[in-house]
């Protein structure tokens, strides 16, 4: 439908551009004739004014002479004027523009437009609003329950409420929900950085001193917390220390092992700041080249290689891989994917105690992940299975 309308508009434009071809054989309206007809009209006016006594006879006579003189001089000049002509080639140019205009407009539209997006009038969004009302109702019930809880409500409950408010764009409410738990002993680094994020959202992206305090607390607990690191960099940049902000971002990216969802935002921000400093652009490939290239661990290829070995050899091979991974993870405890692989490897080898420890280490790292990350689910599931 949209494309049919576009085609009709383009056709209309083309037709408009072709219309002048009708005048191929008509006469041009000359400048001189136009001027003469206006001067003639002025002559009549002067006569009429004189008759009505609006101007005196002498004034009229002087004006008439002057106007007539102008008419005469115009007609003298006009004898040199060339008549207009329209060559056949001019028609070709007109046809060409009629073709080019829709094409050019189409090309421009492809740059700017979003043809796949529908229009959505407010009135058509009843269902969405009902859902919204439902969510609002649920959050209200959750809030009431948390408030009536004599123990002050569980920390996860308040954080869930805060996160829901954040998604609804009710930043101020999110801050007041999270405020209830940030002072608790079980407030993790992730909780504090989410709290800081909410405060920053309230102030339209400005990192206020209060938010900065929460960031500092979050970084004290876990210096690698990506969200806290990110907002610390934003704060530094807003305070005018762009150099430090850039270094902080790229520094944290440098310690990353393998691609992670937070890296995109880091890279975009680092480049924004880097541009003002005249630094080179960084890209995801710089920091997370390809998964596992220099992170040793039992990869699919390794396992395929082991398939050809004898039972004993295979077991020894896998063990050596696992030991190497475990050693590396002692040095780089923040590699979530590494811990998960290690946990899985121990499970395969039947060492349930070690597997549980590896998954537990992985779970600690998930606190800084968005709740929608599938890995969180996988780790929880593995831990449940291992405990049973």
């Amino acid at each position, binding site marked *: *439908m*949209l494309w049919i*309308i*576009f085609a009709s*508009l383009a056709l*209309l*434009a083309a037709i*408009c*551009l072709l*219309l*002048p*071809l009708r*005048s*191929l054989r008509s006469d*041009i309206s*000359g*400048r001189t004739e*136009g001027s*003469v*007809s*206006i*001067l*003639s*009209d002025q002559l*009549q*006016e002067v006569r009429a004014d004189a008759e*009505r006594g609006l101007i005196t006879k002498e*004034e009229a006579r*002087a004006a008439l002479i*002057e106007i*007539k003189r*102008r008419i005469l001089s115009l007609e003298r000049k006009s004898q040199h004027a*060339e008549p*207009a*002509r*329209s060559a056949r080639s*001019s*028609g070709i*140019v*007109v046809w060409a*523009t009629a073709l*080019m*205009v829709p094409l*050019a*407009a189409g090309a*421009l*539209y492809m740059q*700017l*437009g*979003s043809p796949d*997006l*529908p*229009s*959505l009038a*407010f*009135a058509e969004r009843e269902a*969405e*609003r009902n859902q*919204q009302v439902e969510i609002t109702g649920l959050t209200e019930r959750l809030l009431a329950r948390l408030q009536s809880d004599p123990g002050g409500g569980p920390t996860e409950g308040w954080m869930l409420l805060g996160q829901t408010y954040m998604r609804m*764009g009710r930043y101020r409410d999110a801050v007041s929900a999270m405020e209830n738990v940030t002072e608790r002993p079980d407030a993790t680094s992730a909780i504090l950085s989410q709290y800081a994020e909410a405060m920053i959202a309230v102030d339209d992206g400005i990192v206020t001193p209060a938010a900065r305090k929460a960031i500092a607390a979050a970084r004290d607990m876990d210096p690698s917390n990506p969200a806290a690191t990110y907002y610390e960099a934003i704060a530094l940049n807003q305070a005018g220390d762009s150099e430090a902000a850039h270094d902080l971002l790229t520094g944290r990216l440098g310690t990353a092992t393998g691609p992670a969802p937070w890296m995109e935002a880091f890279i975009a921000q680092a480049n924004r700041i880097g541009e003002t400093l005249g630094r080179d652009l960084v890209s995801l490939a710089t920091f997370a080249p390809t998964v596992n290239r220099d992170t040793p661990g039992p990869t699919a290829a390794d396992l395929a290689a082991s398939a050809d070995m004898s039972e004993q050899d295979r077991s020894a091979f896998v063990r050596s891989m696992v030991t190497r991974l475990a050693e590396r993870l002692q040095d780089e405890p923040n590699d979530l994917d590494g811990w998960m692989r290690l946990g899985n490897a121990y499970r395969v080898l039947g060492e349930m105690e070690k597997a549980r420890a590896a998954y537990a280490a992985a779970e600690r790292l998930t606190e800084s992940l968005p709740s929608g990350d599938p890995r969180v689910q996988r780790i929880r599931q593995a831990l449940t299975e291992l405990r049973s």
Partner: protein
Amino acid sequence: MIPEIGQFALALALAIALVQSVLPILGASRGDLVWMRSARASALAQLVFIGIAFAALMRSFTVSDFTVRNVVENSHSLKPMLFKIAGTWGSHEGSLLLWVLILAAFGAGVALLGTNIPDALKARTLSVQAWISTGFLSFLLLTSNPFERVFPPPPDGNDLNPLLQDVGLAMHPPLLYFGYVGFSIVFSFAVAALIEGRVDAAWARWVRPWTLAAWMSLTAGIALGSWWAYYELGWGGWWFWDPVENVSFMPWLLGTALLHSAIVTEKRDAFKSWTILLAILTFSLSLLGTFIVRSGLLTSVHAFAVDPERGLYILGLLGLSIGGSLTLYAWRAPSMEGGGLFAPISREGGLLINNLLLVVATGTVLVGTLYPLFTEALADQKISVGPPFFNASFIPIMLPLLMIMAVGPFLSWKRADLKGVFQRLRFVALLSGLAALAVWYLTEGGPALAYLSIAIATWLLLATLREWATRIRLFDVPFAQAFRRARNLPRAAHGMTLAHAGLAVAVFGFVGSSAWKSEEIVFVQPGAEIAIAGFDVRFDGVEQLQGPNYTADRGTLVVMRDGAFITILYPERRSYPVAQSTTTESAIRSTLAGDLYASLAEPAAEGAAQSGAWTLRILYEPLVNFIWIGSALLVLGGGLSLSDRRLRVGAPRRSATLKPQATPAE
């Protein structure tokens, strides 16, 4: 889907504008009629496609389609329908779309109605118009796309600035833009004339209706804007010499000069290059205004767009069009033939002084407007040039102008008899002096300048009426005959009388409301009485009200005079929760003699609202309504002049039938 149609239509309009920029003007220089005539079709097509885009945006606003970013940022589902519609041009992007729409409307107007304009001139004019169009359409699409989408859409919009939720303001930008942008076509005519190398009486007459139309809209726009400031802002003034007001006032001053200088070009074939220069400068000031307002250089109520990238783009456009046209002028204008000669004392002489004074006045306003910007940019010093500067510099230029304005219409072309004119105006001069004396007797003091101004305004009003009476020989001949003469008078003559009288009426308003204004700012408890300008105002407390998208505190003021009940005033303070802001709704008792104006300021102190104590501001502004009446007369006069038969004459096809009559017999 609808926003995408708007987007595509806008892209088509830009492509067509590009063709129109090149083809007709090339056709005019090659003498190719088909290419010249292509201007007509493309000018109309541009209007159609920009119109489609505008309608698409408006539809997105009326149905609150929050997939369009512009709608999200400038509307809200709960807003009254009128303001949803006005939201279309309430934002930066929307107002620029309106800008190009009006630009295209003037282009299409010339294409459609200018049947009497020769092909070559029309083709060149429309090409120049398309240059401006290309500049602004590309600006719109590349830096301020009104059809940018958001998906998924947010639940609701962020509201329009509630201060801008007012009927006066809803209509103010369209009218102001009509005037502002209307001068674009006059500019295009001027540049086309420079390229063609020919300016004469006929050119002046072809341009005149467009100048008049633009001037009328600008007058109406400025008057409405000032009316809005008076009623909505709650400051009790109608003109603040705010930069945003100034940038619309400068094109008006120069446009007025242009309107008058073009008369000399039309009637006497003189002032040619001056008229061209004025046409270029008038539109340049309009562009400057657009730049100042749209670049966010200023921070005032109007300047809601703050974005340096956009500012630089407009600055580029500004430099290109002003620099380019002035270079062209410097190159071509000297080759223009001089026109008719005239003595210093003549109609031409009078109009020359009028022009000089108007240009000096414009310069004064320009300096006062730009000086703070320069000091801020160069010396990093924020200063503000306020009413004292303008009152001290602008008014002394205007008073002589008003005096000469009264005399000008009495002067004949070429050389005039000033002594005779003054003899006819003796009685008028006497009455003006008496009027000033009478005002002095009636008022309790006031600045000497105010009495002088009253005398001059009376002089202008009476002399203008006297001139009209002379023309129809009122009182010299029987009334029926005078009436017949009035009917025979060209409409332009009536138009001039109305406009000049309108200005005199407005001057009464300016002077009355500034020199004899009374103001009381008081801290009141319910039951308190305030005496102002002969009225006794009793404060009966404040109550809370619930509006459609706001809550209001409404005060009740009982107005009495000499113990007799006059009226009750209800000033309000509204707060809009979604937009988190408050507005003042003043209550006004409006009469011809003056306005009693009350507004409610914040509760006097923290906790004072509980005890019912508020700060009230009460003003009495004598004659203030004369300003709007005078402005209406100005617009009406322009309209009457625009309807003059002569502006439709000059079709070359008719010249064949006219010529035999016109051929001199002597």
